[in-house]
């Protein structure tokens, strides 16, 4: 059973920020490794990029773009909360972060397929 304090939009905003941050941090070394193949093994980089043409991989990429966008917009929400005076519009910011991220990653996918 979900505890009362967790059944709140801002708790989900917190959880999404943690999950997106952790996923991005784990993805980062892989991302750097693949790019550095350009230096050491260009053929393997092209082979890897060819693999990214698979539709399922493109959807996974959309997921990463979504996580990056939602972490960015959620992070801006946090900075606004911490650095600017509090306002009743906090929940609107959280919703805008999710909506904006969906828009950015959707645009990515439309260009990818």
């Amino acid at each position, binding site marked *: 059973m979900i505890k009362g304090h967790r059944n709140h939009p801002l708790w989900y905003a917190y959880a999404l920020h*943690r999950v997106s*941050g*952790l996923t*991005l*941090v784990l993805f*980062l*070394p892989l*991302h*750097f*490794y693949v*790019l*550095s*193949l*350009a*230096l*050491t093994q*260009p053929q393997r*980089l*092209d082979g890897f*990029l060819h693999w*990214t*043409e698979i539709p399922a991989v493109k959807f996974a*990429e959309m997921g990463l*773009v979504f996580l*990056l*966008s939602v972490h*960015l917009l959620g*992070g*801006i929400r946090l*900075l606004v909360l*911490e650095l600017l005076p509090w306002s009743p519009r906090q929940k609107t910011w959280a919703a805008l972060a999710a909506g904006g991220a969906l828009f*950015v990653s959707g*645009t*990515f996918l439309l*260009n*990818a397929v």
Partner: protein
Amino acid sequence: MDIRLYMAQRLSAIIMIPLVFGHLGVMIYAIQGGLSASEILSRTQGSVFWFLFYGLFVIAVSVHGAIGLRTILSEFLRLNDLALDAIMWGFGLVSIFMGARAVSAVTWL
């Protein structure tokens, strides 16, 4: 959390706001028609702008990711400060090294 880590986390976040917006734009632009090594390199190789852009990005994201990882681990696992600091420094240094290698791989002529 240490106030210096808190400040470094906020500062690296503020630095990255324009960089992430830029990176999202580059991704949406670059993905059109698929990606190839030669296409990426033709855009980035020899470019001082992209070297500085992604060089700064690598430093900021390594700091931010390492501190964020420490925060999450401290919330969910019962680790002492020594272990948390070791993981933070380990991740941060490996990330900076790998990131610097990646940036030089795609921007160096």
